[in-house]
């Protein structure tokens, strides 16, 4: 029946047509297309602190548009802090530096890159020995390596030091003098395993928030962790802590001696561990008496050690520190208990300390004495404040006394090995140690006729005009000295560019390839994802371009033994690329070439690094990274412990294979409790402490340009106890003057705000470039590490007579 058949056909066609219409309508463009289309994601470590979180960077149309915590990263497991979530915004402050600027008649005027490179080269040629580089723990590993090779292997000068001198130097001398090799034996995995977390002067909730949450989230999951906060003021960290032990500034030395005293008195230390794995040492009266005195100390028997600790009864310690004897006993009781795992963390509290090396030693000491070492969760671990303080400053050795891979300038063997790897003639490396940070700036600020032997200073990736202590003496004194030439490579104008004679615009973070090394020995890699603004260029390129110009001008040091340019770099095909020409710089991966060369240095101290391509695949790897029989690369979590460290002999259990005493033993040091370099007195009755806040990173040059962070913390302040304020008739929010022997500062007082200092104590964060607390700080350095104490000096306050 035709009709029926036709009807069936039409029905089928109608059904199909309806479906076609529905599909077609549905696919018509929505009123607003989903904007997440076209975002590409890539990995990078966060630009800010030393925690080393990995972020995923969302890029669209050559701009960063989103940030996400990387779930594959072991460090942060998908979480970030507020700075990390906003790190992408750091690239887009509207006042990014985009062209080189030269100061003429007091004004910074645009010049070409050729002129800029020529100017630097001429300044160096005129007096190479009076040229210095002030670098950074924010340098990428290849950047620091290029600078180090340029000045030590090229110019034959050791006047290079990083800002890490201001934050990590005491941790370095601590590790070197205890284990004979730098950097923590444990890692962040300890935070997942410890039963007790002791934070020594470490406001982790604000300064290393992701690590802090790593512990706090264990509590959320129902695990029990005892949190102990030792501090000189109450902070956000205190709010989460089970115990808060408030101590008098500088008395941390007494507290640790008190713990050691009790461990020995109660026979609660670990005699087996001490006998097998430890020797005893004391710091000589003059820590610099002989070249080996600073790190080797004087031998001491266990009996001597016992006797030295004899006076540090809990009662004496209570008197010195203000911490009740009961709480000292509580701490000692924890260390006496071998069944629990104790992790200690510290950062600037121990390090920025005029006895910082000793503070570090004593903390390692109580862990070793009690045997709380070498098991997951049992570790003394220092944290870093900069993303590559470990990777670049410490491992690459961009310090005035180091060569790459933990080698020393003073050691002729080390110089020879370095010259071999660099293929430069014997004797190229200057055997004399260069100027450390504070000395470098002092010499730069001193007129040449008065012994100021640094004339040209190149600053990269840091802001010493705000972060140096005692700024009047160490930075501002540069003003008005026309023969001193300050070069600054940065991304924004800062307190440092204020006095700069030449400003170079740099590429930052994901505008360039890079590698960082975080606090737990983890080396991380990322690729360039967006182009830098204007004519901003990579810091490493700047260094190589100057080296090439010096080469062309005939500086003999810019050639190796075979007459080749120091930075003769080859691409993957083995072809040489003239990377000093900017358009050619990304024709090859300069980072990879420099890193593969640097990698040769890493074996000596068993800090073995894997090939570059392994880091491309991973979210960072912790050294030593050792190749397996099957060709894969394995990282090391727990150093010196047989169960994890491939370099420990079978059956040794624990082996300190870089031991100072060459017997595979670590050193337990005795150091006395001492007074601070400057203590409150009748004229200056307050302790003044400085530090950071959650929202801002270091001098704030990046974070203060991020609206969300700026709005949350728009300016600096001074914290004070309410009773102290009441006595002086000061109201919350009032402008007051804080004065020390070095300077004064007007700023608002904040009472019971973010932190709560005890009576007689002040705190000022240092991020604010208009309210610079380093006009006030002391600049007294630890005699061994040369790291200044920013945490203690004497101050007084007064009501500001009129508004500023």
């Amino acid at each position, binding site marked *: 029946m035709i009709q029926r058949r036709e009807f069936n056909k039409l029905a089928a066609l109608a059904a199909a047509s309806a479906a076609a219409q529905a599909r077609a309508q549905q696919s018509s463009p929505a009123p607003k297309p989903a*904007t997440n289309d076209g975002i590409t994601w890539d990995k990078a470590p966060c630009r800010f602190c030393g925690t080393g979180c990995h972020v995923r960077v969302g890029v669209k149309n050559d701009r960063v548009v989103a940030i996400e915590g990387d779930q594959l990263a072991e460090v942060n497991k998908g979480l970030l802090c507020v700075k990390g979530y906003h790190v992408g915004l750091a690239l887009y402050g509207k006042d990014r530096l985009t062209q080189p600027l030269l100061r003429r008649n007091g004004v910074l005027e645009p010049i070409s890159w050729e002129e800029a490179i020529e100017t630097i080269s001429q300044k160096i040629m005129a007096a190479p020995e009076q040229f210095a580089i002030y670098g950074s723990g924010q340098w990428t590993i290849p950047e620091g390596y290029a600078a180090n090779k340029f000045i030590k292997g090229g110019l034959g000068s050791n006047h290079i030091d990083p800002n890490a001198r201001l934050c990590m130097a005491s941790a370095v001398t601590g590790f070197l003098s205890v284990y004979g090799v730098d950097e923590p034996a444990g890692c962040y995995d300890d935070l997942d395993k410890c039963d007790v977390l002791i934070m020594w002067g470490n406001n982790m909730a604000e300064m290393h928030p992701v690590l802090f949450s790593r512990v706090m*989230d264990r509590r959320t999951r129902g695990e029990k962790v005892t949190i102990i906060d030792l501090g000189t003021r109450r902070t956000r960290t205190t709010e989460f802590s089970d115990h808060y032990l408030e101590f008098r500034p500088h008395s941390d030395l007494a507290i640790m001696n008190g713990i050691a005293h009790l461990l020995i008195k109660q026979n609660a230390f670990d005699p087996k561990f001490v006998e097998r794995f430890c020797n005893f040492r004391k710091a000589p009266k003059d820590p610099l008496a002989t070249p080996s005195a600073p790190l080797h100390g004087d031998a001491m028997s266990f009996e001597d050690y016992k006797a030295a600790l004899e006076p540090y009864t809990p009662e004496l310690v209570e008197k010195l520190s203000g911490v009740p004897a009961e709480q000292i006993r509580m701490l000692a009781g924890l260390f006496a208990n071998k069944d629990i795992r104790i992790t200690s963390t510290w950062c600037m509290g121990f390090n920025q300390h005029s006895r910082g090396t000793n503070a570090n030693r004593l903390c390692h000491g109580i862990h070793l004495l009690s045997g709380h070492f070498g098991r997951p969760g049992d570790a003394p671990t220092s944290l870093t404040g900069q993303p590559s303080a470990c990777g670049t400053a410490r491992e690459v050795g961009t310090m005035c006394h180091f060569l790459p891979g933990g080698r020393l300038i003073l050691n002729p063997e080390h110089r020879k090995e370095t010259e*071999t790897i660099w293929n430069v003639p014997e004797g190229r490396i200057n055997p004399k140690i260069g100027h450390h940070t504070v000395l470098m700036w002092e010499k730069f600020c001193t007129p040449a006729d008065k012994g100021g032997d640094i004339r040209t200073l190149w600053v990269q990736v840091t802001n010493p005009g705000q972060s140096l202590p005692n700024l009047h003496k160490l930075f501002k004194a540069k003003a008005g000295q026309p023969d001193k030439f300050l070069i600054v490579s940065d991304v924004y104008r800062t307190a440092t560019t204020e006095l700069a004679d030449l400003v170079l615009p740099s590429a930052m973070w994901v505008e360039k390839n890079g590698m960082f090394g975080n606090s737990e020995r983890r080396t991380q890699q990322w690729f360039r994802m967006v182009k830098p603004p204007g004519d901003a260029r990579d810091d490493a390129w700047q260094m190589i371009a100057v080296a090439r110009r010096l080469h062309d001008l005939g500086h003999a040091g810019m050639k190796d033994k075979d007459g080749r340019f120091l930075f003769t770099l080859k691409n993957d095909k083995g072809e040489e690329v003239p990377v000093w020409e900017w358009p050619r710089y990304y024709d090859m991966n300069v980072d990879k070439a420099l890193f593969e060369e640097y990698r040769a240095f890493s074996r*000596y101290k068993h800090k073995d690094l894997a090939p570059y391509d392994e880091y491309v695949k991973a979210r960072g790897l912790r050294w030593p990274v050792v190749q397996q*029989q099957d060709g894969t690369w394995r990282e090391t979590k727990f150093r010196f412990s047989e169960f994890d460290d491939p370099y420990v002999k079978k059956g040794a259990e624990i082996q300190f294979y870089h031991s100072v005493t060459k017997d595979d033993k670590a050193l337990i040091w005795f150091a006395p409790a001492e007074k601070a370099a400057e203590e409150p007195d009748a004229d200056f009755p307050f302790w003044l402490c400085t530090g950071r806040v959650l929202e801002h990173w270091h001098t704030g040059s990046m974070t203060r*340009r991020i609206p969300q962070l700026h709005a949350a913390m*728009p*300016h600096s302040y001074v914290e004070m106890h309410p009773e102290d304020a009441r006595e002086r008739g000061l109201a919350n929010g009032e402008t007051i003057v804080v004065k020390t022997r070095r300077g004064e500062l007007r700023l608002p007082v904040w009472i019971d705000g973010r932190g709560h200092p005890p009576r007689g104590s002040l705190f000022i964060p240092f991020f604010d*470039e208009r309210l610079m607390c380093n006009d006030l700080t002391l600049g007294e350095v630890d005699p061994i590490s040369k790291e200044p104490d920013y945490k203690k000096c004497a101050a007084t306050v007064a009501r500001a007579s009129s508004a500023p």
Partner: protein
Amino acid sequence: MPEEPTKSRQFETSLIVGGIVVLVAISGYFVGLRQTTSALSQTRAVEVVSAETHRDLTGAKDVPVAVRYIDQDWSQHGTNAKWRNSLVDFQQPAAAAPSPDKPVPLEVKMAALQARAGRRAYDGAPPTVPHPITQDSSAACLACHGQGLQVKDRFASKISHPTFGGSCTQCHVTSRGAFTAAESALFAVALTENSFQGAEAPPNGPRAWPGAPPTIPHRTLMRSDCASCHGPKGLFALRTPHPERQSCTQCHVPAAANDQRLFMSAPPLDAVKKAAPIAVPAPLAIPPPNP
């Protein structure tokens, strides 16, 4: 009948006792309230200046006239003291929550997304806090944001990532600053403009066919509790029309473009970790210099 007076006396006694108990309870309640206020209040004013505007002394003699409840500024103590909100100023919500028969028009939804974007640097960024916060502790945050809260048109959204429950201020900072406007005017440097343009929230998830459950158009990291935005305490325009159904991801799955597991096709770290047993370390020697 000697029992009668005893009974009534007993009754009287129990009335008195009962009255005392009730009185004590009531006054105890208010004392308790006061104590809670002062104990919670971390900000101890150094100079307590009585706020003249809130005291009406024009009444007789030295006896102040009681302030009407409606005029009382309940938030003048504690950390939110500077956030002067009056409950009566709150509006009844203009829009009603969506229901299956009343879907939200796209422009209303876009407006809601716009409002939401105002507190975020980009879609997926932790929102800033639109009110002052306790500066030294996160303890109070979950009082409102733990389960979410709605008072008329004001919402305190429910925490969207309950497993990260501790340190709220680690990621969420206040957009109202820590200081008064006057202090900030004196000291804060004006913010340098920032030209960052963040990724925007996508409006609608694509559907497989008309009537199919839409896929999730946005990324879900740190947004695992859908109820935070789409539940009964979320913004009206973003609420689900079927709040009675609890297992969201049974029907709504992330769009493939947002698959957060994929990444540059790089193997996860496990590939490195699951390597063979430790090899014998190579002898300690400096490798030859690179060519």
